[in-house]
């Protein structure tokens, strides 16, 4: 049983405060959906949780199983079991996807004091996961995200989640840019990986449609760098009916 605890997190970029006190606890096996309009700070929260150097945490803490990761570099956070599925995955020209996956997996294993994965075993696992996410096999010989369609990039992120087996996965708008069929594959894939590995999930989205495939245990509405409402799936239906307007923080100028 693992726990990710965010306590009163404040963060800024270029001296502008963008997170204004976020508190949230995610346990293993739980799925938390964070919804909110554009500019509410959802993606920023993802990047800050993963340790993007662009942002400064001004106060508050992030703890993983009682260890503060607030000051840690992204690789250390990953090694402790945190994973971010990017909204816009980066292209790494010339680096084969298989090699990238294996090297990263071995870095994670080494940090956990475990031996490197044997190549045949690794390829076997990889092929299973690829099948689950309905990827063509030739994808493994392509360079990391280079020339991938938007949908392929997102699917590949979930493939990484399957391979790296994190304790907590942050899915940053995994649904954006996907057509209905692709959304179904990706969302169902993520849900089954989460269930299988008892991974805690923080799922960021604009829309409820992805939640038809990954049912959240908790739903949070974010606005202006704060969580303004928390609840259950009922909240999603409320947003669907009325939009975000009733939930928003009214900023006094």
């Amino acid at each position, binding site marked *: 049983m693992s726990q990710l605890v965010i306590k009163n997190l404040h963060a800024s970029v270029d001296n502008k405060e963008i997170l204004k006190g976020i508190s949230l606890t995610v346990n293993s096996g739980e799925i938390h959906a964070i919804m909110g309009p554009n500019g509410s700070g959802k993606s920023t929260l993802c990047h800050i949780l*993963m*340790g*993007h*150097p*662009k942002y400064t945490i001004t106060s508050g803490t992030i703890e993983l199983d009682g260890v503060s990761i607030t000051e840690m*570099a*992204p*690789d250390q*956070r*990953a*090694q402790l079991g945190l*994973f*971010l599925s*990017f909204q816009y*995955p*980066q292209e*790494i*020209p*010339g*680096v084969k996807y298989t090699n*990238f996956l294996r*090297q*990263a997996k071995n*870095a*994670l294993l080494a*940090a956990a004091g475990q031996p490197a994965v044997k190549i045949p075993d690794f390829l076997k696992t990889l092929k299973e996961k690829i099948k689950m996410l309905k990827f063509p096999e030739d994808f493994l010989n392509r*360079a*990391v995200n280079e020339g991938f369609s938007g949908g392929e990039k997102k699917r590949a992120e979930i493939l*990484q989640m399957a391979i*790296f087996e994190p304790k907590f996965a942050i899915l940053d708008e995994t649904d954006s840019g996907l057509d209905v069929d692709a959304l179904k594959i990706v969302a169902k894939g993520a849900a089954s990986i989460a269930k299988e590995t008892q991974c805690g999930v923080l799922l960021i989205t604009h829309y409820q449609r992805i939640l038809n495939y990954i049912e959240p245990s908790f739903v949070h509405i974010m606005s202006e760098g704060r969580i303004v409402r928390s609840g259950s799936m009922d909240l999603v239906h409320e947003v669907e009916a009325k939009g975000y307007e009733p939930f928003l923080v009214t900023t006094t100028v």
Partner: protein
Amino acid sequence: MATQQQQDITSELTDYRYGFHDEEKYEFKSGKGLTEETVRMISAYKKEPQWMLDFRLKAYKIYREKPMPTWGSPFLQDIDFENIHYYIKPTDRKSRNWEDVPAEIKSTFDKLGIPEAERKFLAGVGAQYESETVYHSLQAHLEEKGVIFVDTDTAVQKYPELVQKYFATIVPPRDNKLAALNSAVWSGGSFVYIPKGVHVELPLQAYFRINAENAGQFERTLIIAEEGSSVHYTEGCTAPIYATDSLHSAVVEIIVHKDARVQYTTVQNWSRNVFNLVTKRAVAHENATMMWLDCNIGSKLTMKYPSIYLMGKGARGEIMSLAMANKDQHQDAGGKIFHMAPDTSSVINAKSVSLRGGRSSYRGMLQVAPGAERSRSRVTCDALLLDTQSATDTYPTMQIDENNVAIAHEATVTKISEEQLFYLMSRGLSEQEASNMIVNGFLAPLIKEFPMEYALELNRLIALEMEGSVG
């Protein structure tokens, strides 16, 4: 490994290689600086025929007359031509002590896992002998096919007609000041002759040729591929070659006859005190293919632009250039292609990585002569900068005097982005591992052109160069 045995073999090889017996042994080391007398002494010491002495003397005059190039690197001004030994007897070279070899070179040997005996050879301390057997069996196999693969000094003595026919026909002494210098004082290098229709399957490796002079200052290499033959010649190795001589100025000439194919692969990793100023040129006749695969990692300054003259209809030329410029290094590399006949095609693909304040320059020339109709060429140069102190610059020259041609040129400069690093680090890779991965990916299209064992070593070497480059 028995040290006594090693010494025996070493001395045996020395005698064998230079053909000396006790009564003929005498010490020879030219004084610093260069005079006509030095040139005469070198030639006499080698017991050369008159024509070679005449050639050297003529070249010496040209060297004296010609000014230093005014273009290129500001580092050029740092060469002190009067403070260089222009010829050192090979046995003297080997008298250098292992203790004198700088610690950083030794540590690089460690990291690359170079065997003990090879380390000494590479550091100029002793002769490498383990590859000797490999070389001999290879040599026998080649001789059967009529292939000649000897050092150029031996070729002058044993194959004077061939040498006289081709020597300095591709790079005449008048070409540039350093070519003139090499012509006056050259020593060692390889002479390769591939008879008509013969295909040499394995790469010929200069590294196997046990010759201290092979890694010398002023080598002279001549490769002749007769009609329909093919050969792949490789020089250098990924381990750093330690030289106390600060100037390396080689000349390489290659003649690729009709329908023949030559690939020349270089991995240059001179120690960081060396000025590496090399003239490399090939001529490709009808339907012939020439490929230069040139990788520059070491030296203080390298100025090297392998060139190909496409002289016959349908000839093809390809230049792949990979450079890595680290702290205090300037890699000024590139390539030149001259389309002199119709239906010729060429590719130049150059990639450079600059880090810790290093500078890499791409210098290229593409020329299409009038009448070279339907020539096709594609030039691509990509530079990757790892930090803000490092620099890259590009000097592409094109002179197209024919209308019916297809020419493409593309140049990019990329900086490793914070977003790429963040992405890879979020997967558990350290910043160093992430940077290495990005650099490897960037260079991958060129690395895969190298023979497998070279490619693996190169990747290790690149990782070594990258060590401590972040944070």
